[in-house]
């Protein structure tokens, strides 16, 4: 259910390491389910710097607008342009086609601050979210 090849945050973002310091980030299945039908995603521009735990954008659904918090610190190297025209990809395939950003990490050590799939699963089960 929760992909084991990703890191997670308590704000329900996932991080997948592609290649050394290059990571892909998105929001989890739980997050998309809570939001409902996503109709708009506002993400930082290519080349911008983002900081772990700081607000990096917004996801808007028919019932709410939620802040997106960056799970990592680094430089945005690619933005998923498909989300402009097809934001529903976030609902349909949150860990795949619904990815949001590719980021060049400022350091790999910061990944230690994130949750493993196992920890994230326990966090969801705990009901503290």
């Amino acid at each position: 259910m929760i992909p084991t090849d990703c890191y997670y945050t308590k704000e329900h973002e996932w991080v997948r390491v592609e290649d050394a310091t290059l990571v892909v980030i998105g929001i989890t299945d739980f997050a998309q389910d809570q939001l409902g039908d996503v109709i708009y995603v506002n993400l930082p521009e290519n080349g911008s710097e983002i900081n772990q735990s700081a607000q990096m954008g917004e996801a808007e659904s028919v019932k709410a607008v939620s802040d997106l918090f960056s799970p990592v610190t680094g430089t945005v190297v690619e933005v998923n342009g498909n989300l402009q025209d097809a934001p529903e990809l976030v609902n349909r395939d949150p860990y795949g086609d619904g990815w949001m950003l590719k980021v060049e990490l400022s350091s790999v050590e910061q990944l230690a601050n994130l949750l493993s799939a196992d920890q994230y699963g326990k966090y969801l089960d705990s009901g503290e979210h």
Partner: protein
Amino acid sequence: MVKNFVHSYIPHTDSERREMLDVVGVNQIEDLFLEIPEKYRDPNITLPSPLTEMELLQELESLSAKNVQVGKMPSFLGGGAYSHFIPSVVASLTSRGEFLTSYTPYQPEVSQGTLQATYEFQSMMCELTGMDVANAGMYDGATAFAEAALMACRLTKRYRVYVMDSISSHYLAVLRTYLLPQSVEIVIVSDYINEIDGDAACLLVQYPNALGVIPDLASLGKLIHSVDGLFVVNVYPVALGMLKPPSEYEADIVTGECQSLGIPLSFGGPYVGMFACRNEHIRQLPGRIVGKTNESHGDRDGFVLTLQTREQHIRRENATSNICTSEALIATAVAIHLALLGPRGLRQVAQLCYNKAHYAARCISELPGYYINPHAPDKYWFNEFVVTGPKSVDVLQKNLFDQGIIGGINVTDRVKGGLLFCVTEINSKQEIDNLVIALNNMKES
């Protein structure tokens, strides 16, 4: 103070009061008023004895009769609030219960008629300004202008706003009220600006400006876009009947006071502000937007409040703006007024304003000792112009008034010895000729 007096609507108990006073650090409520000199603190007010309803009405009417009203006496006042003819149909339709008694809809979809009226208003604002999208309306032109500055800050993530010094001082005051507490800096720039700093969130311009002059939007738009700031233009909507819409000068946000479109002058309100922008910026648009959609079962059109998720009642402190209402009834009146005029009618009104104002200016300029727009002799203007005369502005104003004319706003802070005159379609040729005669009576002796 009356002790132990229990007021039906004030729920605080004595012990709660005590607690609050302790927090503030005073002994008794009276201590909160010590700043007020004692002789004024508890004045002895001597009121006249009570009147019957009939006597009271007579009293109020006699007080009211001391006012001079626009319409009872020829007026040449403008400066942001304009006297235009309003067909009786506007009041007759807007006073229908369905419009008059309905508040801005919070359970909106049950009020299809109200939503459709607002949708028509928005559509007309788009047609008038040439912009892609308009909201349901703001409190007035000045607050719309300030909201546009805040929107530009959100979009550019810059917090310095450039404002032309030719904007109305009232609008500048409202900008200060809105922007300064949010740590947005206001930089005042002159009409002759040809360079702008790279940290500009936007450039705010009035079209026409506070003295009636039409600014060079083309070059100002290019200038602010050269640093990727937004171009914000505040309009006098009637002028758009003949001037090119701001969209043709690449405006990003257009605001304006819609009082001139069917709303009578009344101590500054209630008015309604227009707010229009480009599609790409719609998610930062403050206020409410009515959208048109169709039924899920069936093929009828329906109207809904759209993008509500960004409004205050849902997003709380993260809302796009803290306006979460609109001047729905006033906007409805504006839509009715514009529907009555139609595009050709509005153009005629604008043309009449322009022609009559230029006729007045030409006649006044021929009087000895009088000058028109000495601060901007070569600039185009719409229906407001500055007159300097052989006497001080106070003397000119008083003399005009004594001759039965409400004339000119004192603009000496901008133009030495200047009075700002406004002419609309409502001013007859006779009135204008009388104004010229009255001014001529005051020529240099």
